[in-house]
C-alpha cells in the first residue's frame, strides 16, 4: 500500500517544495516521508541535528536514567533471592556522559539520515512572513528567506510553569534541567504527578534524594485509570519520602537552605516546607507563539493549540501542523504518525489521522501503559463496557520475577465483544501494550486474543487470560459466578 501511495504521486510531488518548522519526532518523520515521496524538503530547527525535545531533552535521556534506576532497584531487590550487592556507587560524570552519548548517537544518526535524503537542514528560528514565505533567523542574527509551497508546523511544546510562581533560581527545575542532573539534592519536591514528574521523581529517589510528590487531583497519573495508577502508587510510596494527592502549591520563595513552598492540602491551611530543589512538571504548553501566525490564516485555540482537520491541515490551506503543537496526547509516536500523514496529504494522497488507539506509556517501575478507551472515559461518557482484570499475582512469569505488582485489564463492547481499550501496569507494560493497540486497530474481539496462543511463561499471557475473563473464567483466575 505504501508503494501505491508513492507511485501515484511521485510525478507531481517532484516539484512540490515543503518546509518543516521543528525537527522533533513529528517534524523529522514528516521530512523523511516527504523526501521519500520525492518532494523538495527544508527542515528547520534551533538545534544542530534533528531530534527535538524527545531526543535532546525528553524521551531518550529520561529513559537512559530510568534504565539505570531500574538496574539499581533490581540489584537491591535481588536480596529476596539471597543475592546481595554492595550499595551502589555512582560516577555521575560517567552517567551524564553516557546519557549524552546516547543522545548524540541518535541525533547525529538522524542528521545523517536527513542528509542521505537530500533534505536541506537549516538551523535557526523560523517565522511566517506570509502563508508561503518563511524567514529563518540564525543564532548569529543572519536571516534567510525560504519560499515554499507548503509548510508543516512541528514546533512542539515547552514545560509549563506554575502561574505567577517563577523564581530565578538554580534550585527550581523543569524537566530539561532535571535531566541534566547537576547534582542529587537531599530533598526534592516534584510538583505534578503526571508521567514526567513520576519518571524523574523515581530517578532522583533511586539515586538518593528524599522525593515528595504533590498532585492537585485525587491521584497520580491523571488520564490513566485509577486502578492502574494505584499499583504504581504503592511502589512509589515505598521508594519516595511522601506522595500527596489533593495538594497544591500556593507560593514559593527562595530561602537560605532551599526553596520554601506553601503546600495546601485539600481545603486546609497552606503549610510551609523547605526543599533543596523543586521540580515543576505540571504539563506542557504548545509552541504556537512567535511563529508569525498572524501573517497566515492559521487559527489557534484559547489554549494555544493550532487548529487542524483530520488531514492535519490548519485553517490556512498551505499550512499543516502536527505533534505537541496541535494537542493531546503529547507523545512522540503520535507526532511521528501525524507527520507522515501530513506529508502524504501534501503529496496528494488522501491520508488522515484516524487512529483507534494511541498507546501511552509511563516508564516508571512498574510501568503503566494504556491504549484506546479507558474505564474512566467510558464511565464519564456513559459508554457501556465490559471490563476484565487479571491481577499479576496469578501470573507464573510475574512470580519468577518476584514482580506480582501488576494488573492487566481489557475493556470490551458488551454487544460485540470488540476490544475497545487495554490497560496494563507492571514490569514491561510498555512493550506489552502493543498487542492492545493492534487488537483495537484490527477490530479484534476478546476471543480473538483468548484463542491466540501466547508463550508460556510470559507476561503477555496475562493479556490472553484477561480476554478469557471477559467471558467469565480464565485458567489461572477463578471468578465465582456473579453478574458484573
Amino acid at each position: 500500500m505504501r508503494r501505491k501511495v508513492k507511485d501515484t504521486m511521485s510525478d507531481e510531488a517532484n516539484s512540490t517544495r515543503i518546509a518543516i518548522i521543528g525537527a522533533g519526532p513529528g517534524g523529522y518523520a514528516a521530512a523523511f516521508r516527504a523526501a521519500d515521496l520525492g518532494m523538495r524538503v527544508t527542515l528547520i530547527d534551533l538545534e544542530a541535528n534533528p531530534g527535538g525535545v524527545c531526543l535532546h531533552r525528553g524521551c531518550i535521556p529520561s529513559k537512559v536514567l530510568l534504565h539505570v534506576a531500574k538496574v539499581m532497584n533490581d540489584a537491591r531487590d535481588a536480596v529476596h533471592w539471597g543475592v546481595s550487592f554492595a550499595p551502589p556507587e555512582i560516577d555521575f560524570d560517567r552517567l551524564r556522559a553516557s546519557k549524552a552519548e546516547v543522545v548524540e548517537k541518535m541525533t547525529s544518526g538522524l542528521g545523517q539520515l536527513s542528509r542521505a535524503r537530500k533534505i536541506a537542514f537549516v538551523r535557526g528560528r523560523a517565522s511566517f512572513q506570509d502563508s508561503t514565505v518563511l524567514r529563518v533567523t540564525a543564532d548569529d542574527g543572519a536571516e534567510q528567506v525560504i519560499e515554499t509551497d507548503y509548510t508543516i508546523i512541528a514546533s512542539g511544546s515547552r514545560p509549563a510553569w506554575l502561574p505567577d510562581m517563577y523564581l530565578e533560581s538554580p534550585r527550581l527545575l523543569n524537566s530539561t534541567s532535571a535531566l541534566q542532573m547537576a547534582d542529587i539534592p537531599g530533598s526534592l519536591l516534584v510538583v505534578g504527578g503526571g508521567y514526567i514528574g513520576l519518571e524523574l521523581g523515581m530517578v532522583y529517589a533511586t539515586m538518593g534524594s528524599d522525593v515528595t510528590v504533590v498532585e492537585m487531583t485525587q491521584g497520580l497519573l491523571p488520564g490513566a485509570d485509577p486502578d492502574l495508577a494505584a499499583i504504581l502508587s504503592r511502589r512509589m510510596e515505598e521508594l519516595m519520602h511522601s506522595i500527596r494527592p489533593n495538594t497544591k502549591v500556593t507560593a514559593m520563595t527562595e530561602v537560605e537552605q532551599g526553596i520554601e513552598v506553601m503546600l495546601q492540602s485539600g481545603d486546609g491551611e497552606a503549610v510551609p516546607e523547605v526543599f533543596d530543589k523543586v521540580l515543576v512538571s505540571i504539563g506542557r504548553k504548545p509552541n504556537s507563539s512567535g511563529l508569525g501566525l498572524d501573517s497566515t490564516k492559521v487559527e489557534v485555540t484559547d489554549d494555544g493549540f493550532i487548529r487542524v482537520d483530520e488531514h492535519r491541515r490548519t485553517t490556512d490551506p498551505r499550512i499543516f501542523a502536527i505533534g505537541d503543537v496541535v494537542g493531546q496526547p503529547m507523545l512522540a509516536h503520535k507526532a511521528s504518525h501525524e507527520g507522515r500523514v501530513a506529508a502524504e496529504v501534501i503529496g496528494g494522497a488522501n491520508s488522515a489521522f484516524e487512529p483507534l488507539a494511541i498507546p501511552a506509556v509511563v516508564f516508571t517501575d512498574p510501568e503503566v501503559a494504556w491504549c484506546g478507551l479507558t474505564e474512566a472515559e467510558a464511565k464519564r461518557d456513559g459508554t457501556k463496557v465490559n471490563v476484565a482484570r487479571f491481577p499479576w499475582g496469578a501470573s507464573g512469569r510475574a512470580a519468577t520475577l518476584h514482580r506480582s505488582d501488576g494488573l492487566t485489564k481489557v475493556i470490551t463492547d458488551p454487544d460485540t465483544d470488540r476490544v475497545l481499550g487495554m490497560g496494563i501496569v507492571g514490569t514491561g507494560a510498555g512493550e506489552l501494550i502493543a498487542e492492545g493497540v493492534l487488537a483495537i486497530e484490527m477490530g479484534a474481539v476478546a476471543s480473538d486474543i483468548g484463542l491466540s496462543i501466547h508463550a508460556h511463561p510470559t507476561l503477555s499471557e496475562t493479556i490472553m487470560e484477561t480476554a478469557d475473563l471477559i467471558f467469565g473464567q480464565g485458567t489461572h483466575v477463578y471468578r465465582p459466578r456473579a453478574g458484573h
Partner: protein
Amino acid sequence: MNAKTLEFKLPALAENIETATVTKVLVSVGDAVAVDQPVLEIETDKAAAEVPSSVSGTITELLVNEGDTVKVGAVVFRATGQDAAPAPKADAPVAAEVPAEPARPAEMPAPVEPDSAGPAPAPKRSGAPGVAAPSVRRLARELGVDLSEVTGSGADGRITADDVKAHAAGAGAAEAGASGPGESRTTSVESLPDFARWGEIERQPMSAIRRRTAENMARAWATVPHVTQFDKADVTELERLRKEHGKKVEAAGGKLTVTAVIVKVLASALKKSPQFNASVDVAANEVVFKKYYNVGVAVDTERGLLVPVIRDVDTKNVTQIAVELGALAERARNRKLTLDEMQGGTFTVSNLGGIGGTGFTPIVNAPEVAILGVSRSQVEAVFVEGGVEPRTMLPLSLSYDHRVIDGADGARFLRWVVEALEQPFLATLEG
C-alpha cells in the same frame, strides 16, 4: 435563565445520508445565531441544501471549515446562549446541551494541565458498523470509498480490502479521492493518458452532485437495458388552451407550462399502465408496483442536474402542479431543496424543449423503470383530411427498462400520452 454552552450538531439530513460536504459556512465565531437561521450550505451525495440552526446564542467555537466532510451528529459549532432552544422536532437539527463548566471527574487533569485541552478529536473507538483494519481504512481513502457505505463480507460485517475494491469498482468511473491540498486524486479504475502532453488542461474536483450523477448514470446505463420509443403529439389545441388559461394559473402563483400538463397526463397514464410505475427487485426476482404517483422533474441548475419530485400527482390538478413545480424549480436553483424533496419519485420527466432539439434518448432514472423526454415543439406542415395544415408538434421520447416493459407496451404507453395531450378529455375519461 442561565447562559449555557450549546452545541449544534449536524442534523440527520435524510435516510441513509451519513456525511455531507460543507460548501459554505455562513457564520463565524462571535456571530449571534437564531433558531432556523441558515448556518451552513452543504452538499451530500444527493443534494445541496442549507442547514438551519436549532440553537440561538453567540458562536464561541466553529468546528467545520468549507470543504470539510462532516458526519451527521458531529458538532458544527458551540455557542453560549439561553437554554431556550425549542424542543427538537423529529428530523430537525438537534441541540445537545453541555454545561458551560464541564464537571471534571477525579481522574481528569487539573486546569493548569493542558492535558484536558487538546483540540485533537478523541479517536472514535466503538460501535461503528463495519470493522476495518488500518490498511483497509487507508485503501478506502485512496479509492475515495466511504467505509460507512461498504457492507463487510467478513465475520460480523468486517470490511476486507476486497470489499473496498469491489465497492470502488461498483461505483464506476465516478469514484475519486477527496481533493487533497494539491487538488490531486488517486487514479481511478482506468488510468488516463497525460492530457497535458497535447495542450493546456485544467483539473477541477467533481462536486458531490456531479459525482453522484456520474455514479447513478453509469449504474443505470450498465444495468438497465434501454429502449427509446419516439412519437409526436399535436399540441396545437393544447397550446391554445394553455394561452387561454395561463392567466388563471398565474393568478394562483404558477406558470402553466407544457411540463405541468404532461405531469398531469402522466398521472393518468401511470395509473393505467402500472408497470411504468414500478421497480425491479433483481435479488428477489420481483417487480415492485407502487400505488402512489410521484413524478420527478429534471431541473438544470448551475451545479448540475437535480430532480425534485412532485408527490401524489394523481390527487392534484394542473394548476396545483404548475404552482408546485415553479416553487420546486426555484428552490433547486437556489440550492434550497431538501433531500426529502428529491426522494420517492416513481417516474421522471426531462424537458429540454426550452433549449431546443428534435429528440434525445434520456437515461432511465433507476430504480425507476421509465423516463419521458420532451423536446422543442415546432409548427409543421401536417396532412389533415387531405389538406396540409400548420400544426404545433411536440416530439416525445420514452426510454424504458426492457427487463420489465415490452416494446409493444412502450409504444402503447407513449401513444396514450400523445393522445391524451391531443385530446385532454381522454385523461379524465380513462386515467
